[in-house]
C-alpha cells in the first residue's frame, strides 16, 4: 500500500529540486562582482527619488473592487440575455434573485458613501 505513494514522494522531490536547484545553480555558477552601482536601488533605470513606502489612497482599491463586482455581473447578464428564450422562466427568476442580492449590496455601498469621490 505504501508504494502507492511513491509518485507523491517523487513529486515532492522534483518540486524541491526545481525550486532549490535553480537558485543553487545560480549561486554556484554565477559570477559575483558587486559594486556600488549594482547594489544601489533604482527605479526603471533612474536613481531612486522617492521612498517606496508611501501612503496609498484606499479609495482606488474600493473603486477597483466595485468595478470588478459590477463588471462580473454584466459578464453573467450577457450570455443569460442571449439564451433567455431557451432557458425560460427558471432562468429569469434565478437572475432576478441574483440581481436582488446584488441590489442589497448596492444600497449598502451607496448609503455608506463608497460611490462619492470626495
Amino acid at each position, binding site marked *: 500500500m505504501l508504494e*502507492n505513494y511513491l509518485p*507523491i514522494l517523487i513529486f515532492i522531490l522534483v518540486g524541491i529540486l526545481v525550486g532549490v536547484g535553480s537558485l543553487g545553480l545560480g549561486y554556484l555558477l554565477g559570477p559575483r562582482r558587486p559594486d556600488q552601482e549594482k547594489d544601489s536601488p533604482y527605479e526603471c533605470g533612474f536613481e531612486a527619488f522617492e521612498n517606496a513606502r508611501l501612503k496609498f489612497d484606499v479609495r482606488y482599491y474600493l473603486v477597483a473592487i466595485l468595478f470588478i463586482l459590477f463588471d462580473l455581473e454584466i459578464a453573467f447578464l450577457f450570455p443569460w440575455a442571449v439564451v433567455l428564450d431557451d432557458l425560460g422562466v427558471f432562468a429569469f427568476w434565478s437572475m432576478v434573485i441574483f440581481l436582488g442580492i446584488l441590489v442589497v449590496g448596492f444600497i449598502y455601498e451607496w*448609503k455608506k458613501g463608497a460611490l462619492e469621490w470626495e
Partner: protein
Amino acid sequence: MHFDAANLLPILPEIAVLLTAAIVLVVDLYIDERHREVIHGLTLIGLVVAIALTGVVGGGATELVFAGNVVRDPLADLLKGAILVVSLLVFIYARPWLRDRGMLVGEFYMLGLFSILGMLVMVAANSFVTVYLGLELLALSLYALVAFDRDSSRGAEAAMKYFVLGALGSGMLLYGISMVYGATGSVEFGAVAEALATQGMENKVLVFGLVFMVIGIGFKFGAVPFHMWLPDVYEGAPTPVVLLLGSAPKIAAFGLAIRLLVDGLGSLQADWQGMLLILAVLSIGLGNVVAIAQRNIKRMLAYSTISHVGFIFLGLLAGTEQGYAAAMFYTITYAVMATGAFGILIILSRKGFDAERIEDLKGLNERDSWYAAMMALVMFSMAGVPPLVGFMGKLLVLEAVVRIGFVWLAVVAVIFSIIGAFYYLRVVRYIYFDKPEEDAPALASSGGVRVAMSLNGLALLALGVFPATLLALCQSVFGA
C-alpha cells in the same frame, strides 16, 4: 429547463439566514444610532426561524435537489440544527462586548450570518462544487471578522495570517478536488463513489487527489501539522469573533470531512485512515503538551482545540458507523463547550479590558460564584471528567477505536488527555483557590447572557448524565 419549486423546500433554513443577513444590512443603514440594538433582535429572530424551519423540513428520507448538488438527509438536518443553536448562543454572548466598544454594527451581524450561511451550505452539499462554495463563503466572512477591530494591529496580523494560510488550505483542497474530478469524471459525490467502487485505487491521480484533500481538511480543522494559524488567530482576533470561529465552524468542518471522505471517497477508507491516524496522534500529542506552556487563555484554548480535533479524527478514522456517530457526538458537544469557555471570557471582559491571561480568571468564585461554577463545568468537561459530556464523548470515540483493534491508539489518546487535564484543572484552581486581583470590579452582565450561560453550562452536565438522546440521533444519522 424545468424547475420544481419543491427544490426550495430543503434549503428553507439557508434562505431564512440569507434573508436575515440582507434585512440586517439594510435596516442597519436606515436605523437611528439609538435603536441599533434592533439588528441584534432581528438576527436572533432570523436564527430562531431558521432553527424552526430546519425542524419543519427535516426528517424523512434523503432528498437530492438542484440537480443533485444539494442534499437534505439526517446528517444535514442534525448538523444544521447544531450550527444554528450554537450560533444563537454566540450572538447572545457577543452583544455586551460589542456594545461596550461601539462595535455593535450591522457589519458584524451580516458577516456572522453569512459565515453561518456558508456552514449550512457546506453540511448540505452533495457535490464538490457546493462544498467549496460553502467553505469559501464561511472563510471569507471569517477573514473579515478577524480583522473586525480595525485599530488593532494584532487583529490585522491575525487576519492576514488566517487569510494566507486559509487560502493555501482552500487551494490544496481545490487541487485535490480537481484531481478526483479528473479521475472519476464527476463532481457529484454519488457518481464519484460509484466510479471509485469500479476502478479502485489503481489510478495514481486519485492518490494525489486524496492526499491534497486530506491536507485541505486538516487545514480547515487546524490539525497538526496544519495548525500554525490557529493559536495566532485565536490570540489576535476579538473575543466574540473567536467565539464564533472556535465553535460552529468545527461542526461544519466535521460535515465537510464526512461529505468528502465518507460520501465521496468512502471506498478509499483504507487509504485515508492512515493519513488521519498521523494527523490525530500528532494533534492530540502536540495540542495537549503545548497548551501547558501557554499563559494566554485564548492561546491555551486554541491548543486545546487542536487536541480535541485529534479526538474527532480518531472517531473518523475508525471508519465504522459507530466511529462516525461518536465523532459527530464529540464535535457537537465540543462546540457547546467552546462556546461556554469563550462566553465566560467575554463576560469577564469590560470596556477597555479583555480577559486574556489565565490570571484574569483569578478568584472568579468570589466575584460571581454562578459563572465560576459554569466555567468549572466547561473545564472539567473539556478535561473529560465524568459525569460531564466531555467524558462521554471521549469514551465513545475510544470505544470505536478499540473496536477496530487499535488499542495502542486508544492508550496514546488517554495518556495525552491525562497530560491535558493539567492545564484545565489549573484554570479551575485559579477560579476557586486564588484571590481576585485588587482592582477587579464586579461582573456586569445582563439577564439574557446569564440565562444563556446557565443553559450552556448545565447542558454539558445534562448531556453527560443523559447522553442517550443526542447519541441516538447521531447514530440514526449513520444508521448504526
